[in-house]
């Protein structure tokens, strides 16, 4: 029977020859991820089960949300995770100078790999689909169960295929593709489904750019986002890990619930206005809106290529007076690369704040919270009410290029102008 890549990965994990959408299977897990916000509840529930970890090397703990610890409660939570990791001899435990934003860290460290089934107590765990893995978000109690049993039940999702043909115009990026798509289908347009991204415009993207797309699959309600791994992905993995992985691809005659054809050439730089990630507009419709803060970073767009784009636009120029611009490199490796390439120097001279790798302001934790009435343009993935601070503040979502261009004027600005 013909299967989609998502069906094949789930079949493989459940030991079945084939599965079809709508069926419920029990799949073996390759990794179970938690962070400093979701981890303490997971530890609490796990300890109630009174069994050992089914596999300590499948546990991944990344203390990235409220770190470096923003207050006493957060510090106590990190302590809980540290003690748990030590007691159980957890291999993949990241804190302090090892901390990176988890959804860039796992690919970078060679933990996320093609064909694997990875679950995480964080909704943007869907990111790893950009490497051809099946990955999805779960809650803390589910993570505890997963730690205990090494498996979880899954309903095999129907797949919506997004066939993105054509070529992106200058200053239009993968962030704009996904904002455009979510704008078209809505925040529940792919509810419970797999979003499979394909086509020449997708193949043309670098691995990092693909991760930006699958990162936001959850914003359309999807169970997972996925892109068939190709030679670019294999090269990416080769440079990072010698651990096993498996390449799966959708059969030519695989069944899709829907196939949506999109022409990359139709896409202009996008801005998703408050308070839904689906409120995508062409940048020209919102250009001129005054900003209080710009944030360039996050699991969506905190990679070295994102910082390179931003730095190229900001080089030798100053950010607008009165505007706070925060740069968050996603991981220590990205931070180091940005340092080596002179990007941090560019950002500093432009008048930016450079934060350590952390989820930080993206979810309203720390490192750039908004006051009442303030407006931030960010490379992040969510702009719900109160997302970055005061419930009466606003978050607008855009690409690193749009954010960098806007940082220079203090108003939302079309990056094609620079």
């Amino acid at each position, binding site marked *: 029977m013909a299967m989609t890549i998502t069906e094949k990965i789930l079949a493989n994990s459940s030991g079945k020859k084939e599965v079809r959408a709508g069926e419920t299977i029990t799949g073996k897990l390759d990794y179970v991820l938690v962070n400093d916000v979701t981890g303490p*509840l997971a530890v609490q529930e796990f300890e109630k089960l009174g069994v050992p970890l089914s596999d300590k090397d499948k546990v991944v703990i990344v203390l990235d949300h409220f770190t470096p610890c923003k207050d006493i409660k957060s510090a106590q939570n990190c302590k809980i995770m540290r003690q748990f990791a030590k007691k159980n001899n957890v291999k993949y435990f990241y804190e302090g100078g090892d901390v990176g934003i988890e959804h860039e860290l796992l690919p970078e460290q060679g933990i996320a790999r093609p064909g694997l089934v990875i679950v995480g107590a964080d909704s943007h765990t869907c990111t790893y689909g950009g490497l051809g893995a099946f990955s999805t978000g779960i809650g803390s*109690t589910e993570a505890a169960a997963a730690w205990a049993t090494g498996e979880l039940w899954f309903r095999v999702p129907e797949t919506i295929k997004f066939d993105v043909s054509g070529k992106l115009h200058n200053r239009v990026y993968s962030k704009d593709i996904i904002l455009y798509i979510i704008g078209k289908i809505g925040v*529940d347009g792919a509810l419970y489904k797999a979003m499979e991204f394909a086509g020449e415009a997708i193949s043309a993207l670098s691995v990092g750019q693909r991760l930006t797309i699958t990162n936001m699959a959850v914003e359309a309600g999807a169970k997972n986002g996925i892109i068939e791994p190709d030679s670019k992905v294999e090269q990416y993995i080769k440079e990072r890990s010698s651990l096993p992985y498996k390449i799966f691809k959708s059969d030519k005659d695989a069944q899709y619930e829907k196939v949506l054809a999109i022409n990359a050439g139709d896409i202009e730089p996008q801005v998703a206005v408050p308070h839904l990630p689906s409120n995508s507009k062409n940048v020209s419709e919102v250009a001129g809106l005054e900003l209080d803060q710009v944030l360039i970073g996050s699991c969506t767009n905190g990679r070295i290529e994102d910082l390179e784009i931003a730095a190229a636009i900001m080089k030798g120029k100053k950010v607008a007076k009165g505007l706070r611009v925060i740069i968050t490199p996603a991981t220590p490796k990205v931070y180091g690369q940005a340092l080596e390439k002179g990007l941090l120097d560019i950002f500093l001279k432009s008048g930016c704040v450079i934060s350590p790798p952390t989820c930080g302001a993206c*979810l*309203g*934790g720390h490192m750039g919270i908004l006051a009442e009435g303030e407006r931030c343009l960010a490379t992040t993935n969510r702009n719900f009410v109160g997302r970055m601070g005061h419930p009466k503040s606003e978050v607008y979502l855009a690409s690193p290029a749009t954010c960098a261009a806007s940082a220079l004027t203090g108003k939302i600005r079309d990056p094609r102008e620079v």
Partner: protein
Amino acid sequence: MKKTKIEGQISEEEDLAAHGTDAKSFAKHALAPENSLSAQLDITKISGSVYRCGDNVDTDVIIPARHLNINDPAELAKHAMEDLDPNFLTKLHDIIVGGKNFGSGSSREHAPLALKAAGVKAIIAKSFSRIFYRNAINIGLPVIILPEADQIGSDAIIDLAKGTIESKGKKFTFAPYAKEVSSILKDGGLVAYLKKKLKGKKN
């Protein structure tokens, strides 16, 4: 002890006055053994007053990130829905009725935990975000998908075993839970259910 108030900052006292006193007593009410979910499920009926909300009620408004360093459900309850409706905690709500995509956004289990600890016994919505749905089941909070949710009035009676909801003289049906989900809810959540299962395997 006199506390200096900083301009623009809400003092602990003001915050408690707005939310805390009521929330504290409601949380106590919700967590009292006779009101526990398993007690409810033994008679398979959940009834009471309805709190209505619209589409896309997301996890950031259900429990803002600034409170995610809290793990205690009773503490979380004090902040339930505070960015959506500052009056949410001024009354006890037994059932929440939402529109499409209830619980969208984050995987934070703090969201259903806060609602359950604030006294919510069930959530009915036209559709749910998948992580929230699964989290709610796992902590023993029944969630029901009902396309006709708009037609539910200010009070409702839910029969989980039969798969019916009665409100405003109308009767609605929903697909009863799969056996495993029903067992998880009956046991009060995934951990209790799994503990039994794991114990069974050992023997």
